[in-house]
């Protein structure tokens, strides 16, 4: 194995040092040892010292600028920009002191939710290099062990990520370590190390202050009393004594730092969302001219879908008119889709109904409901006479043109009241099988009055003859729609009617036709 070392570290030579290449930031990395061990992780810790500044919209301010945090003792500077630093303002300084140093200082209170949002944005972009990303308070942890080969080796990958984060943030510190805790520690302390072997971790972290592993003030004092200032000092101390004095937690932390214990990290799952807009060169009044732009946006969407390995459940077109009018046009999909041609066809169908009064200048495509992509199964011999594509695409087409409410299925519902014994449902949804009582094929939306003339029930000019059989339905007292009715079948000529007599009012009504 080729061994290359830059800036040899002051640590003595050890057997585990073959895979070590400690470098200073910016110098070329020549060690490209491939990592085949599946349990072996490579963590890239990214620390963003100016995150609190960058997450605010005012970060592009030209003058001295600082972000402070409210403490019990007062307001304390969290981070200041370069101009502010020049006038002597440092982190941890009180805001009043900073203002004395530079009266022009522009300051804002820290906003942690904005910081978190900024980190989520960065993590979403970093998702192009690895799916295993952890959000920290002040940076990101990327497990790149699975992606090195894909991006042409570790060096290339780190260079790509480094180049990206430098455009996004000021003075980021990127450090590669075999454990998450050590990567985080090195990045936070500004050590841009590149270590791939666990055996080399102690040599790097040894010189770092022990305070990074111990947070509470009491233990901190004890540490000073013991005379242990660096992490190296802590590692050298007997383990049982350490556990007794500082609690077993510290041992766990040290073991995780050195890779002796597994250290699972919460994985960041980016929220799936696609939003892309397209400004049109000319104001468009004819829908035909929108089609190229629609195709363009759908192609972008298709690329997004294949990268994320998802399919689309619904999409929405948004149009902005020249005079500020806004149109929203949803496209409903009966089942998740990823094929761009079908999406384009449906979009065109939905557009047909659009009436434009204001010339369109901007077009936007939004999608935020996705499902994981299911690989298509195809049988060797096509046994059905209809294609899979026909199955739902008809419903989809109908719903897109006529509106979702205009296309539906029906199903029976378990209820004695005839009006409630059915309901609308999504097409294809199966309901309960209704009982064995005879019911009409048509139900009138609202029961129709039947008059009594000369002792006969008449509807229009026709006389109804009652069947002797009667069915009493009394139900629904619990949800304030009670009915008490006697239902009869009646016939008049060829018509078989389903009529009832309301037991409360005594009125006769026509309710259905057989």
């Amino acid at each position, binding site marked *: 194995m080729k061994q290359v070392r830059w800036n040899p570290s002051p640590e003595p030579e050890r057997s585990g040092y073959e895979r070590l290449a400690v470098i200073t930031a910016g110098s070329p990395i020549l060690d490209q040892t491939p990592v085949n061990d599946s349990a072996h992780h490579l963590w890239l810790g990214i620390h963003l010292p100016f995150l609190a500044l960058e997450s605010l919209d005012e970060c592009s301010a030209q003058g001295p600028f600082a972000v402070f945090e409210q403490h019990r003792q007062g307001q304390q500077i969290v981070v200041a920009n370069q101009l502010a630093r020049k006038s002597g303002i440092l982190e941890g300084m009180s805001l009043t002191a900073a203002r004395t140093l530079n009266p022009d200082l522009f300051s804002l209170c820290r906003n942690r939710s904005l910081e978190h949002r900024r980190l989520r944005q960065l993590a979403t972009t970093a998702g192009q290099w690895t799916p295993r990303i952890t959000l920290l308070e002040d940076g990101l942890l990327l497990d790149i062990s699975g992606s090195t080969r894909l991006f042409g080796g570790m060096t290339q990958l780190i260079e790509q990520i480094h180049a990206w984060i430098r455009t996004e943030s000021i003075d980021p510190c990127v450090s590669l370590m075999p454990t998450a805790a050590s990567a985080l520690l090195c990045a936070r302390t500004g050590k841009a190390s590149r270590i791939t072997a666990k055996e080399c971790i102690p040599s790097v972290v040894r010189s770092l202050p022990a305070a990074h592993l111990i947070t509470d003030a009491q233990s901190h004092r004890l540490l000073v009393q013991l005379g242990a200032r660096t992490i190296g000092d802590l590692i050298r101390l007997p383990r049982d004594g350490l556990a007794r004095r500082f609690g077993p937690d510290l041992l766990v932390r040290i073991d995780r730092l050195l890779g002796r214990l597994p250290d699972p990290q919460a994985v960041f799952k980016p929220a799936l969302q696609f939003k892309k807009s397209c400004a049109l060169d000319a104001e468009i009044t004819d829908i035909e001219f929108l089609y190229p732009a629609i195709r363009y946006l759908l192609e972008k969407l298709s690329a997004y879908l294949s990268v994320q390995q998802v399919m689309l459940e619904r999409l929405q077109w948004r149009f902005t008119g020249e005079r500020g009018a806004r149109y929203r046009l949803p496209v409903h999909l009966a089942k998740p889709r990823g094929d761009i041609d079908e999406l384009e066809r449906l979009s065109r169908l939905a557009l047909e109904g659009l009436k434009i009064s204001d010339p369109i200048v901007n077009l936007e495509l939004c999608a935020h409901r996705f499902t994981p992509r299911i690989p298509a199964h195809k049988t060797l011999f096509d046994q059905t006479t209809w294609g899979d594509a026909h199955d739902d695409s008809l419903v989809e087409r109908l719903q897109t043109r*006529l509106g979702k409410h205009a296309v539906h299925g029906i*199903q029976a519902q378990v209820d004695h009241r005839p009006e409630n014994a059915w309901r*609308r449902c999504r097409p294809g949804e199966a309901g309960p099988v209704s009982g064995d009582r005879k019911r009409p094929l048509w139900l009138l939306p609202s029961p129709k009055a039947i008059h009594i003339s000369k002792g006969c029930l008449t509807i229009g000019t026709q006389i109804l003859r009652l069947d002797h059989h009667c069915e009493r339905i009394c139900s629904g007292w619990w949800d304030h729609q009670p009915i008490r009715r006697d239902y009869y079948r009646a016939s008049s000529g060829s018509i078989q009617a389903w009529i009832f007599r309301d037991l409360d009012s005594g009125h006769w009504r026509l309710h259905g036709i057989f």
Partner: protein
Amino acid sequence: MNLDACLQRQDIWRGKKALPADSAVATGFAALDNCLPGKGWPRGALTEILVENIKRSPLWLILPALSRVLNSRPWQAWIAPPALPYPPGLTHNGLDVSKIIIIEPENQADILWSAEQSLRSNACSAVIFWSDHLKAAPMRRLQLAAESGNTLGICFQGDEALRHHSLATLRIRCKETASGLKIDLLKCRGGPLCQNISIAPDSSTSDALTTFS
């Protein structure tokens, strides 16, 4: 095109016996079946049923055929029904309502569009629609759509359509009588025009259908 391919065409009439076996769906009423050329409603064609009152369309007349074809394709489209097709009544008659899609377009143009889409889609076992009088051009279009999708198309219309010429394969008129319906064949491609066929709701011979009354 060879002779066999030629004879496969629906619009070539070869006399009563030569019709392909699956060219019709039995109506479930023996009296009616005997009068129709394929012994049933023609498949891949449009059937017009003219009724006195469109709001009281005799659903029982087509139910046996509908439940017979139901499982052959994923959907069955009912477009612009005049009242609510009542699921408990339909399931009681052996129809699986989960395959039915009810389409309620707002205007006549959308009714025709939905009917054409459904007929052509190859996904519907049958398409039933209720419509105002159909003009010749849309009727021809729907007839072609039914042919290309090989779908059973049934259109209920009011009596006033009688005054106009029909392009459908089969056109019948139903008259309500005391015992049921009296059916006249007004147009029947490939068969004689029988008159006064009496059928009653309970005379259905379909095994899927529980008898009425």
